[in-house]
């Protein structure tokens, strides 16, 4: 009969050869755009990854509305914030991290990578990917995070920050939907 099409070697490979997975072909940037096809309606980034707009809190963007270098001098000192953003509780390796590690002091409407390269908020995954390379690789392959769309065509991606609050990235617990009813045993 049909339907024995999955080669046994593939399953065997999947089970046996996984420790070798560190250097796979999916790691090449140029491989990626072809697998997601034409853009969905959302914003497109220069890297060819199509994501919805970043989930800014109401009214915070552009940051330069307040962080105008002529009005408000950047204060690079690490401190407890008291004039604004007091609601942000940093739970993201707070011992070693600080606002300006990711936000750019000179250009508040952008982020910067460790090497200083500016990245727009639409490409924040590049910033996250600097430390979380394994997740970044899986995300680009469509395996980390939620995908919607077509299994054989256009897919809609989400930014890391759509699911993880960048300041406290642990996935927050949620309420479950109702449990099934226990079957009733009649005597």
């Amino acid at each position, binding site marked *: 009969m*049909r*339907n*024995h*099409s*999955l080669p046994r070697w*593939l*399953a065997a*490979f*999947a*089970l046996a050869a*996984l420790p070798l*997975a560190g250097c*796979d072909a*999916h790691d090449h940037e140029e*491989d990626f755009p*072809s*697998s997601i096809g034409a853009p969905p309606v959302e914003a497109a980034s220069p890297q060819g990854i199509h994501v919805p707009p970043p989930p800014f809190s109401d009214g915070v963007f552009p940051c330069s509305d307040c962080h105008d270098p002529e009005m408000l001098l950047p204060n690079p000192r690490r401190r407890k914030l008291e004039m604004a953003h007091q609601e942000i509780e940093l739970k993201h390796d707070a011992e070693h991290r600080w606002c300006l590690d990711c936000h750019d002091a000179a250009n508040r409407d952008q982020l910067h990578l460790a090497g200083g390269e500016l990245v727009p908020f639409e490409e924040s995954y590049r910033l996250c990917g600097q430390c979380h390379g394994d997740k970044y690789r*899986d995300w680009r*392959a*469509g*395996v*980390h*995070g*939620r*995908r*919607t*769309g*077509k*299994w*054989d*065509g256009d897919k809609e991606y989400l930014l890391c920050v759509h*699911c993880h609050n960048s300041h406290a990235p642990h*996935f927050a*617990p*949620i*309420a*479950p*939907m*109702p*449990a*099934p*009813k*226990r079957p009733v045993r009649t005597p």
Partner: protein
Amino acid sequence: MTDTADTTVSRRDLLCTIAGCAAAASVAGCSEPTHTDFFRHHLHELTPEQLKAMLADLEQEFSAKYGKDVTVAMTEARPGVSFAYALDLSRCIGCRRCVHACVKENNQSREPAVQWIRVLEMDKEKGIDLHHANAYYEAETVPRPGHFYMPVACQHCRNAPCVKSCPVGATWQEPDGIVAIDYDWCIGCRCCMASCPYGARHFNWAEPELPAEELNPKTHYLGNRPRPKGVVEKCTWCIHRTREGLYPACVEVCPVGARKFGDLNDPASEIRYVLENKRVFVLKSELNTRPRFYYFYGV
């Protein structure tokens, strides 16, 4: 077969007569027309015309019953496609969004409730041990500390015990790997339920209750069309969606992205990436059912 041309013709005449009577009766308001045709052949033996007529009958019946336009498709498997599914146990938080999205998408009976996905809660200390799994957990929030979650539905086995145990050939594996049921051919003997090691098949003990406003009108003959009482049903990987290129509903609703679906024959697919790069296992591999449903650890 011993049928002669004469008996075949007379059977057709008989059916025409019955259909004519039913149509006349419905016009007169005496009884509803029914698609159930005791004398029809097995689905695989129907001519394209017979199939088309049968689907049209069903569409008419469901549209009248639920008061909205219901389509019943018979989209065939795409050549060269071999479906598989993977679920990331390190991500699932047991929120049951998939269970309820599935019910909504696939027109399961609301009362008595039929759910194709069961989410099992297990202790991290004990690991995967089905004897202590709990599907009825209640919690304010999930995941509960010290627990992990394992959703179980049809595993779409390549070597499916349910297919082998069906005495009438009402369930089979499609060319793309989906194990399908013809609800109109099922005799309700429940042999398939007894033979399924995953508890994935569910029986309609009572007339399924499905409010018209909750009916998903886009249906597939082998999938989410409304079912009658007394037949077995189960996950079809949202056959009405996946045969159109869409993801199953559970994949799209999962808030943690634990569910992955795709074509094993496409080297660029997500499912291939999972099989090639992650730690993967199948449930009850010792039974040699060879599921198309894989569990993996994404971290």
